[in-house]
């Protein structure tokens, strides 16, 4: 990622923009933080937030006219937060925080003429920047009645900050001129001096500079204490710039109130009226009022995404991590797993007010990792091996319908449907042939695992094989059932006409086999159907025709959530993948119906009843929700057997693919053995290879007590260990484990 791209992405995410209160406050007091602490009864901490930002906080907190109030987003839901009253409560109730420590003295001195609120605030702010400050006035006078001692306490604090106050001085033009001679800069509080002293014209709006070099002044007539204080701060900034000889005007846009881009969704916010201020808040009422603050933030994307939530931040932070991850040459990359865990589902993009596409960021980062050779080898290997298998001789086929020599359509069930519900795929194909005639069949993978893992070259290779096979059939219209296949192929093969099986069924009507048992089901839209409103509509009309009444989960339609399989999350971080599936499962009480084989598997594996639409349209023996979820090995076998059976039964061909040597090894597993294999992603074929190797080499270990055998083999990049027993006609597997480290010079 280039730095400019990083900036563009960062700039899109508005989560770090100020809430409206802070943006509207001319001093940018963090009302959100203050309310958040106060709501948690942390009174002193809440006060510290104010005292950190306000000049003369004891005075200002009691006099502030709360310009934030008009901007407060809570105003749309019951009434704005009573920030002024909260400030007054805190000023009375909190312990004074540690005194502010000004910057080290810079050796320069400034005179402030006039001791009203603006002049005092200017002196405060200028002193904080390290200047020696002297205020000339008749007497400090903030223009409001305050409890005894409040002003004196702040003046004492100013004294400690190095502000000298010369009382009993009548401000005059001569005084100003004399101070201009003597000091590095002079500030005039226009509302704290007689009219005659304002001889310098209207000060500049941004810099408060006048027609005299080094003379700064507030604009007369400001009545809001918050804006008076802000003028003092503005003067301090100008004097700082002036004394350093830097630009007086550059980047000062955020000094006063500004517009914020922060978006906060109010749709789930219940209205709540302000707590009555009365004579002022006590602690209980202040805490209650502070709790009304919405703690305005965006986080729209994070709310709906298990993955974004898991890493505890938000895209602006993530994209920087992605950038840094790529920039690392030596040392530990920290974000690989994060980059590889995004489901690439596009929900964030859809809900984000600024269209931040975390999926695009992550997919691009994966591509870069592949290009640079920094992709962790284990991340997607299992899925890519499975794809290679689905695209291998044992699974692939492309045929015209039996007896036909051309195809009007070709049915493309996809490798996940044939792996999980080969019977359903077979029945669907029969129905399509029966009702549409010349429907060919293509069995293979659409290439999604290659695309999702960022392996573009591999994806192009698989796509070109797919295209060749399709062209071999005369480029017929493709009927695909899997939403991911449809999405991927529509993007990659614009020359092909790709229709969803669901729209074909909507047009043809339900087949005779359809189970019209009715009932209520929740619809799970797969994330690949997010942008395909037509497909979602077809599915719902089919459910309607089946007599099913449907319920929609909160995240549905174009806002649907991924089941945890997308982007290969479940391969990279199975626990997080399962958490995503669980979130989906828990979203509704009703049983689910979906139209993606992987959604069905992921959700059903959480223990929730979930069925594929095929289970209703092309039912098998089991009740729709009861179809088991096959393990890794069985999924492969399902594809192989489907191909064999179809070739034999429909085309009267014998399968021409010879079994490999290892496939002849006869293996059964104990329940524990099978569970270990499934969890560790060890396939029956891996075990067969180990056993064949042990048989051939004679190398193995034997257990002193159980008499069982143990052997290992590394067919490619993973070493498998199998604990077994010999049986009459083969092997019984008790356990299996694997690792990626290689034993140097050791066994094969």
């Amino acid at each position, binding site marked *: 990622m280039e730095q400019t791209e990083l900036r563009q992405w960062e700039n899109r995410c508005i989560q770090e923009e100020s809430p409206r209160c802070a943006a509207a406050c001319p001093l940018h007091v963090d009302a959100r933080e203050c309310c958040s602490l106060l709501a948690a009864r942390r009174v002193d901490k809440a006060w510290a937030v104010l005292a950190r930002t306000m000049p003369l906080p004891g005075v200002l907190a009691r006099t502030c006219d709360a310009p934030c109030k008009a901007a407060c987003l809570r105003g749309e839901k019951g009434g704005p937060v009573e920030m002024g009253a909260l400030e007054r409560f805190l000023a009375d109730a909190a312990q004074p925080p540690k005194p502010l420590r000004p910057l080290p003295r810079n050796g320069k001195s400034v005179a402030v003429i006039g001791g009203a609120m603006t002049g005092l605030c200017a002196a405060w702010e200028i002193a904080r920047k390290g200047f020696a400050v002297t205020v000339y006035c008749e007497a400090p006078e903030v223009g409001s009645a305050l409890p005894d001692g409040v002003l004196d306490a702040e003046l004492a604090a100013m004294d400690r900050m190095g502000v000298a106050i010369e009382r009993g001085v009548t401000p005059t033009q001569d005084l100003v001129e004399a101070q201009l001679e003597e000091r590095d800069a002079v500030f005039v509080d226009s509302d704290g001096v007689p009219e005659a002293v304002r001889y310098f014209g209207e000060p500049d709006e941004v810099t408060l500079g006048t027609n005299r070099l080094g003379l700064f002044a507030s604009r007369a007539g400001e009545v809001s204490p918050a804006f008076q204080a802000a003028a003092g701060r503005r003067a301090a900034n100008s004097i700082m710039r002036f004394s350093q000889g830097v630009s007086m005007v550059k980047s000062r846009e955020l000094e006063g109130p500004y517009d914020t881009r922060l978006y906060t969704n109010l749709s789930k916010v219940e209205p709540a009226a302000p707590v009555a201020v009365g004579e002022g808040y006590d602690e209980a009422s202040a805490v209650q009022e502070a709790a009304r603050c919405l703690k305005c933030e965006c986080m729209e994307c994070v709310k709906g995404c298990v993955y974004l939530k898991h890493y505890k931040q938000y895209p602006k932070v993530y994209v920087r991590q992605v950038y840094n991850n790529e920039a690392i040459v030596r040392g530990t990359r920290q974000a690989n797993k994060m980059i590889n865990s995004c489901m690439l589902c596009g929900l964030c993009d859809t809900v984000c007010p600024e269209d931040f596409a975390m999926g695009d960021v992550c997919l691009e980062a994966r591509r870069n990792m592949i290009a640079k050779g920094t992709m962790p*080898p284990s991340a997607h290997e299992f899925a890519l091996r499975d794809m290679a298998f689905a695209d291998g001789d044992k699974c692939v086929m492309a045929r015209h319908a039996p007896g036909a020599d051309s195809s009007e359509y070709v049915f493309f069930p996809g490798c996940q449907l044939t792996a999980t519900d080969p019977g359903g795929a077979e029945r669907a194909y029969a129905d399509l042939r029966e009702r549409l005639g010349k429907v060919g069949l293509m069995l293979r993978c659409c290439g999604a695992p290659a695309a999702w893992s960022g392996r573009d070259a591999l994806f192009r290779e698989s796509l070109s094989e797919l295209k060749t096979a399709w062209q071999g059939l005369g480029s017929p219209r493709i009927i695909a059932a899997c939403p991911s296949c449809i999405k991927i192929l529509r993007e990659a093969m614009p020359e092909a006409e790709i229709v969803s099986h669901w729209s074909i069924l909507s047009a043809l009507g339900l087949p005779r086999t359809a189970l019209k048992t009715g009932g209520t089901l929740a619809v799970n839209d797969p994330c690949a159907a997010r942008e395909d409103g037509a497909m979602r509509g077809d599915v719902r009309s089919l459910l309607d025709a089946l007599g099913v009444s449907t319920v929609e989960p909160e995240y549905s339609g174009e806002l649907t959530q991924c089941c945890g399989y997308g982007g290969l999350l479940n391969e990279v971080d199975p626990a997080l993948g399962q958490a995503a599936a669980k979130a989906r499962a828990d979203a509704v009480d009703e049983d689910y119906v979906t139209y993606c084989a992987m959604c069905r598997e992921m959700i059903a594996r959480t223990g929730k009843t979930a069925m594929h639409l095929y289970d209703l349209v092309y039912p098998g023996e089991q009740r729709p929700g009861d179809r088991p979820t096959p393990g890794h090995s069985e999924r492969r076998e399902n594809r192989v057997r489907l191909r064999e059976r179809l070739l034999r039964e429909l085309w009267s061909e014998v399968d021409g693919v010879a079994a490999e040597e290892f496939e002849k090894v006869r293996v059964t597993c104990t329940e524990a053995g099978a569970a270990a294999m499934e969890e560790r992603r060890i396939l029956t074929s891996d075990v067969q290879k180990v056993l064949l190797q042990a048989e051939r080499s004679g190398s193995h270990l034997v257990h002193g007590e159980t008499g069982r055998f*143990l052997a290992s083999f590394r067919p490619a990049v993973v070493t498998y260990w199998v604990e077994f027993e010999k049986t009459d006609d083969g092997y019984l597997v008790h356990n299996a484990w694997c*690792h990626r480290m290689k034993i*140097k010079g*050791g066994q094969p």
Partner: protein
Amino acid sequence: MSVITVPGTGAGGWRCGPCDEDMVMKPVELTYLNSQFNVELPACPKCGYVLIPEPLALGKMHQVEQLLEDK
């Protein structure tokens, strides 16, 4: 390279089948990605067949693999 001993790594009752020997602990070189480790592991004294026990493979070894993959 110093030899790493992983506590609790033993033969766990396994012996070499063809050689009929008890396993003994000896330094074995393991490699992953661009890293090498010298680890004390059970091996057959005669033919050198090395055992990677299940707890090691799924525990420490797996952790190190993940670390080396920069996760």
